[in-house]
């Protein structure tokens, strides 16, 4: 099993304009893409939302990792397509839902690849999110790569005990993941308890007024990104609500094999 999907969410410091952008501007951009992707179910619009991201990925020089995470997401994309299609949606709608998933995954992968957890924490704090909450969030993000490593070790340990993940019918394969998930959850809980105890022993939350060392400042370019995103998102919402969009007319659906659907 490949854990490459996590690589596409791992931050790496690079001197590109996307990496240097203010985390709040980047977050606005991601949210803009998120809202737009959820507003549309039209395949053309969703394809545009996906394509718009490609130049940004290129500018952030994260092409390879992004492609890796997209490849890793293919299985889920296929599942979404198959589920929609099997349960009675048209071919076009099923494809649209798949493109929506891919767009969302791409947008979030881009955000996490180019925003350091520290910046993210600072941004949340400056947005007056309570420190305990922002800390929880950044810790969760930071622990993803650690969890990915843990997951790989658990998989290795169980394979060494004769577990073959890709063997058996669909239900058996799902069941095969139980010996992976339980140790992973247990060790995550153990780790979080240890982390909490370690933090408290080091005086976490002792002083209510924290003074950050680094203060984030929005630059002109960041304001420009925020303004453009808001304008485009507003436009997207307007179009999705009031403008009828053309859609490819292919009324193919799955024959009804399950009578009660």
């Amino acid at each position, binding site marked *: 099993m490949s854990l490459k999907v996590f690589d596409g969410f791992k931050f790496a410091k690079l001197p590109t304009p996307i990496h240097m952008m203010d985390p709040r501007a980047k977050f606005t951009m991601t949210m803009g893409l998120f809202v737009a992707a959820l507003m549309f179910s039209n395949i053309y619009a969703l394809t545009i939302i996906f394509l718009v991201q490609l130049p940004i990925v290129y500018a952030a020089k994260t092409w390879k990792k992004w492609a890796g995470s997209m490849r890793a997401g293919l299985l889920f994309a296929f599942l979404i397509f198959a589920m929609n299609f099997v349960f009675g949606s048209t071919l076009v709608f099923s494809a649209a839902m798949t493109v929506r998933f891919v767009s969302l995954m791409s947008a979030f992968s881009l955000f996490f690849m180019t925003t350091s957890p520290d910046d993210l924490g600072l941004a949340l704090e400056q947005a007056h999110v309570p420190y305990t909450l922002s800390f929880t969030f950044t810790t969760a993000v930071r622990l993803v790569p650690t969890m990915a490593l843990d997951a790989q*070790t658990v998989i*290795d340990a169980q394979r*060494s*005990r004769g*577990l073959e993940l890709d063997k058996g019918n669909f239900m058996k394969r799902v069941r095969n993941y139980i*010996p992976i998930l339980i140790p992973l959850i247990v*060790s995550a809980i*153990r780790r979080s308890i240890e982390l909490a105890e370690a933090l408290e022993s080091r005086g976490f939350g002792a002083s209510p007024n924290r003074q950050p060392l680094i203060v984030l400042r929005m630059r002109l370019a960041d304001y420009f990104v925020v303004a453009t995103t808001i304008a485009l998102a507003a436009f997207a919402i307007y179009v999705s609500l009031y403008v009828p969009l053309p859609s490819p007319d292919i009324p193919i659906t799955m024959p009804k094999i399950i009578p009660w659907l």
Partner: protein
Amino acid sequence: MIRTEGLKYAYPNASEVLRGIDLTIEDGEFVAIMGENGAGKTTLVKTFNGLLLPTSGRVMIDGVNTRESSVAQLSKDVGLVFQNPDHQLFSEAVREELAFSLRNFGYGEDAIDRRVANILETLDLARYADSSPFILSGGERKRVALAAVLVWNPKHMILDEPTIGQDYDQKDRLRNFIVQLNTQGKTVIIITHDVEFVAECRPRIVLLSRGLVIGDGPAEDILSDEQLLERGSLTRPQIGALMHQLRDLGFSDRVIDAYSAQQAILHALKRRQ
């Protein structure tokens, strides 16, 4: 027999961890793999059951190239006990935990019951048979993890850091148990930093540093070689250090365990009388 030829391994997007290892471990040998953190010890043993396939060179297990077999197939002969038991325990009862691998390998229920009962007894776990492995202490969980591999009686046993988190008493028992396994004809390979443990067992030591074998020989040779110890980030075991201090009085600093030291001292005393 476990044999590696020109074994190199690099993790994806990382530099080479194993940089050309030629190693032969005969059936029934007792080997300790030692070396600094990041030397490639765990990576090396993961190539023995096919979890990692060499980026170049090859690994042969009893004449079978690991590339031409599955992890499940290789694991029948090469049992690997991971360092942290929490990375593998998942069942509601210790008994079930032990039966898991046997089911994977296709044993019948009768054989499973027999083998599980047997191993529970051997590793002093019978009273926990129906307890959840998660409520056991760290040392007990480690024993369950060991039992979970021993239960299918693999020909070669590999233990990654077996002494971590064990008190002296448990360590002693573990040592006896490992030696016993070895005398029964099993190949036993341990990865460890624990020089005291190794000094008392006196296995063959394979010393790794930065992905290469820098020393390979009997424990008393490796653990008394000043240069090798330094390169491998190891220190002499306490008895070895004492004998080293006493070398001007005619003691050999190749003596590293309590029993041999006692013999050497008694011998010297007798001579003086």
